[in-house]
């Protein structure tokens, strides 16, 4: 199913938030690509704009937030210009989303069967019995034991991991072309995390759907992603094939992140990477109080006056692999 042509392409997307004191740019000229049937991992700390990107793609930005420029092209269609009705037809049908909090993302007063069947009835116009049948199939496919009986259970009767399986079943019910999974395992136990990831990979192989996996866990990316994009305070600071990035992280922030991830540090150290940072000193800049030049400069060990005064360009470091850093080029040349 893998195909090289990008099936989703985000070009120079900016999102701004209006406040009483002015507008704050929470996403600044971000570009991304996802190829058919592959997984793109988006990595970054909370508040870096990962979730805003996802909500912008769903056109479900919270009140006060607005797409101010750029395009989101899904199979040739720019959905930043789509009508509300068109967006409703896309949501849940072509693009669906799995949210971070399985405990609160399911409606407590409807049965899980109703909630899964609802999406199918909405988009495929199935009748009640057929939709219910489909819901049972979906519950089976996410490996919920006793699917027929569980259909009539309410969310509070499920554990967190089971609820996230229900969310996945709901997201997959209409066989979407793209699934956005926003930190799907953050709220879950480690063992359950592994199960959920295994399930997602399995389902992707079966259905050929593309996945955008948002996470702050590079380990998860290493396991699942074909490509990676790293975000830092509203910027996409590095992107490229997962293998290339994991082997050769070119932005100091990315290498810093990797040294914070125990599972990856060995490999990185063996590859002879940048200094072993263990943790990245300092704090993410507050939105609205951005430094003038590179946003990472205040925390960067390599930063000089040039970094602090001028916004760095995207620099190609390997095929399809680029980093937004003044220092990268030098490193590659060396």
């Amino acid at each position, binding site marked *: 199913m893998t195909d090289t042509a990008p099936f989703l392409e985000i070009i120079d997307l900016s999102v701004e*938030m209006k*406040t009483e004191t002015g507008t*704050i740019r929470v996403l600044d000229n971000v570009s991304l690509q996802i190829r058919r049937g592959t997984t793109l991992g988006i990595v970054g700390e909370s508040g870096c704009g990962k*979730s*805003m990107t996802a909500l912008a793609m769903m056109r479900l930005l919270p009140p006060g*937030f607005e797409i101010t420029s750029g395009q989101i092209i899904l199979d040739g269609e720019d959905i930043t210009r789509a009508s509300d009705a068109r967006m409703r037809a896309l949501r849940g049908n072509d693009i669906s989303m799995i949210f*971070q909090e399985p405990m609160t993302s399911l409606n407590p007063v409807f049965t899980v069967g109703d909630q899964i069947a609802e999406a199918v009835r909405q988009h495929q116009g199935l009748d009640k019995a057929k939709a219910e049948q489909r819901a049972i199939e979906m519950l089976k496919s996410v490996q919920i034991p006793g699917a027929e009986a569980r259909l009539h259970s309410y969310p509070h009767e499920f554990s967190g991991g089971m609820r996230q399986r229900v969310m996945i079943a709901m997201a997959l019910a209409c066989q979407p072309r793209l699934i956005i999974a926003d*930190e799907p395992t953050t709220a879950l136990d480690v063992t359950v995390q592994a199960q959920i990831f295994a399930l997602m990979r399995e389902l992707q192989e079966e259905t050929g759907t593309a996945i955008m996996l948002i996470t702050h866990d590079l380990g998860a990316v290493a396991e699942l992603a074909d490509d990676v994009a790293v975000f830092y305070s509203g910027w996409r600071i590095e992107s490229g094939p997962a293998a290339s990035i994991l082997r050769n992280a070119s932005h100091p922030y990315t290498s810093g992140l990797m040294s914070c991830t125990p599972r990856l540090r060995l490999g990185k150290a063996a590859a002879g990477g940048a200094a072993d940072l263990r943790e990245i000193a300092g704090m993410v800049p507050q*939105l*609205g109080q951005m430094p003038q030049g590179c946003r990472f400069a205040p925390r960067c060990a390599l930063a000089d006056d040039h970094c602090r005064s001028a916004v760095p360009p995207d620099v190609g470091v390997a095929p399809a692999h680029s980093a937004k850093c003044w220092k990268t080029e030098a490193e590659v040349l060396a």
Partner: protein
Amino acid sequence: MNTQAIASPDARADTAPLPASKPDHPLRETLKIFLKNKSAAGGLILLTIILLGTTIGPALYGVDAYEMVWMPLSPPGDGTPLGTDYIGRDILAGILIGGRVTLIVGAASAVMTIVIGILVGAFSGFFGGRVDAALMKFTEFFQVLPSLLLAMVLVTIFSPSIGTIIFAIGIVGWAQVARLTRAEFLRIGNLEYVKAARAAGARDGYLMFRVILPGSLPPIIVSSALVTGASILFEAGLGYLGLGDPNTLSWGMIIGQNQNYLLDAWWTVTCPGIAIFLTVLAISLIGDGINDALNPRARKRA
């Protein structure tokens, strides 16, 4: 996570101006916010006018509210400013003098309601366990019973006078205040400074009324505005049903006595009703203003 992302910039925008102004005494700060609130200030002005009207109004107007002064049921402007009632008494004079009973009864029974509510809620929340269970059952009993009906029975059996009316209204309406106080006591009772005072050997009474109560006052103050409004409406209802003190006029009583003439003489019931409405409205506005002043962040959401 996303909700947090949205909430935090908002919160910053909310709190940012506060530290900028010079640090004030919290009470003065509260008063400032209260007075800036247009509707609250309006309520305060309205209430002041009503209080002045009922205290010095009758003397200024100089018409005896209890005597027949004009033709019965004559309309406003036809000899008297607000018309006369079914036995020729001046409606305006009645409203000016009748406000006294309404306001006194309203205020006194509100105080009684709040005191009972605080006591029951404080004991319930402080001691917990069986005391709490028993007191809450007791509270539920008063919450479930139709309070007006109980007050009617009490006033009827003990014959209407200002004292029995205050007692009857005070005894039936405290359930909400008790629940609120209990909830506050449960919350504050677990805070560090209370634990510290307890560990230092403070007595129960001291803990309850000197340590915990002051912290739980803000919501109680807000609800006391509601209670006062409700007590005034209550008094009006009893007066309307003929259960007012027979020796003095009250707003509800004027309406009740004239209700049979309502189709021929709308002013007899309309004007005293407006007086009740404006009084309770003024108190509600003040209550809303206090609420906003005590927790400015709730204002955005409310």
